[in-house]
């Protein structure tokens, strides 16, 4: 009789034990989500094949081309840890960013254009150093947020270069007392419900860099914009309307 009780208890223990083990090992559902950064000019899609042609016209009426476009986004909110991503449109590099093993079904999707001051530490990121994305120490160091180079047709009807480079703004009026302003900015794209293999399009309208709220005059502001405190602040302001949410599927 004793043996029977022992066997019963042992069986119960095993069964309950197994149940517990099953509960503890149930994996939460995981999703893979991909962000696709796409680029357009007021709705006209831009691919690397559209580079090097004076085919775009900015708000100020200047025809321009794109020759190089690479920019940095950081702290995409799909994951909790710090992250950054370089997107090089001309090289078709980094335009698609995949996040595997997400567990939440809903996200307030946001990211930062560039680096916040906290993350913008000089020389820290080997991959960005290796592609010379740095900002000189005399301008405060850290990294470019964007290098947007091309040519525009100037007032003399000649193609001239422009370097629309965004960095943390620095006021060098007093060389012994540099003043900085964080010109990175957060982009909020609203709440997104995801399922496995959801693809989210994030659109950059390049025309907005020259448009809103500051109508950009390339004949006046074309090169050597990195040390130009006011230009950096204007670029930051125009950046506010550059990104938008595209197709989610």
């Amino acid at each position: 009789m004793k043996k029977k009780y022992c066997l019963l208890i042992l069986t119960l223990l095993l069964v309950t034990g197994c149940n517990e083990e099953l509960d503890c090992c149930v994996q939460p559902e995981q999703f893979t989500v991909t962000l696709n950064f796409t680029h357009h000019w007021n709705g006209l899609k831009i691919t690397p094949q559209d580079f090097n042609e004076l085919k775009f016209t900015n708000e100020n009426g200047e025809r321009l081309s794109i020759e190089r476009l690479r920019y940095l986004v950081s702290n995409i909110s799909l994951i909790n840890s710090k992250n950054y991503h370089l997107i090089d449109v001309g090289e078709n590099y980094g335009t698609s960013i995949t996040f595997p093993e997400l567990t939440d079904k809903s996200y307030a999707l946001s990211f930062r254009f560039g680096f916040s001051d906290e993350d913008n530490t000089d020389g820290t990121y080997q991959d960005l150093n290796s592609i010379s994305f740095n900002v000189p120490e005399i301008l405060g160091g850290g990294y470019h947020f964007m290098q947007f180079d091309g040519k525009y047709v100037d007032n003399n009807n000649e193609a001239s270069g422009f370097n629309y480079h965004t960095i943390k703004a620095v006021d060098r009026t007093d060389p012994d007392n540099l003043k900085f302003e964080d010109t990175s900015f957060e982009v909020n794209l609203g709440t997104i419900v995801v399922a496995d293999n959801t693809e989210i399009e994030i659109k950059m309208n390049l025309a907005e860099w020259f448009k809103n709220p500051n109508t950009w005059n390339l004949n006046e502001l074309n090169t050597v914009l990195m040390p130009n405190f006011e230009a950096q602040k204007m670029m930051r302001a125009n950046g506010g309307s550059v990104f938008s949410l595209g197709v989610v599927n």
Partner: protein
Amino acid sequence: MIKPYIYFFAFFLLTYCSSKEEEIYTPIPYNLEIPALFADKLIAPIIPTDNLLTEEGVLLGKKLFFDKKLSGDNTQACSSCHNPKKAFTDQQQFSAGVQGEFGARNAMPLFNLAWNFDERFAWDGKEFGLEQQALEPVSNPIEMHANWNLVVQKLQESTEYPSLFLRAFGASEIDAKLVTKAIAQFERTLISGDSKFDKYLLGETSLTQEEQNGFNVFMDEAKGDCFHCHGSNNNPLWTDNAFHNNGLDTTFQDLGFGTVTGDPNDNGKFKSPSIRNLAFTAPYMHDGRFATLEEVINHYSEGLQKSSTIDPLMKKVNEGGVHLSPKDKNDLKAFLLSLTDREFINNPNFQE
């Protein structure tokens, strides 16, 4: 009772197996000494998984690099145009091949090649990967003008090479692929990272006022604006290894990168060379048109030529450039020369 012939058979097996094992030599992994600044600032060098560096491979590659058997008439080696004492250039505008013919491009210096992350080599980027690059000059009719089959035959018939290849690659049968693998291994060990400016960055020395001002000119977007293409204190390669039209000509005799890509937008673009070791690598530019550093600086300051593919990073092209002051030019040169690495050109591991 075990029969005696069983013992004999077992003994035979053991001795046979052990002698076969002795034939299989495992090469010793090569310890690539990466300068502290490189390790700190840059991503890892490119070492192909199918051609990892070994002591034996590097040694063989070095021997091949200096061996004239690689040319058609046994008069030239790789080192004939890539002299270690000249940072692996020949200080000629164009190099003469075995038949006295001249090419149209300046011999490029060789160092820090494992950090060419895009792996496009040569002025026009025509060769992908160091192994592939090493193939071309050997058979090029205006360079070493050899037939690879005959080169392999010469090496195979030599008394030394078959055993060296066996130790390096486990194969005594030589072919062009193994030759270029060995040369590429040697080339990946050619690291230059010990100049005065490197020591300055490591806190081991200080710069002169001229060198410091020259560095500031280099890093100032309104002056030299050299850093966008030629690295910085945070990129010790001092090149972006990319292709740019730096305003040398209004029309192009040599299309450069455009020949390789077939894209007219790449016409007139050439690889940005590293500005390390400029003291040893004159003349400058892809066609060696500038004999001195002064000429190079003057070009960027006043001599820019406009063309459809000129890089937008070239400033004030309509005025020929940014017109640096004589002092800034002089100081810029002083800074550039602070990237001279005499340890590199005298490194005994790189000499014949």
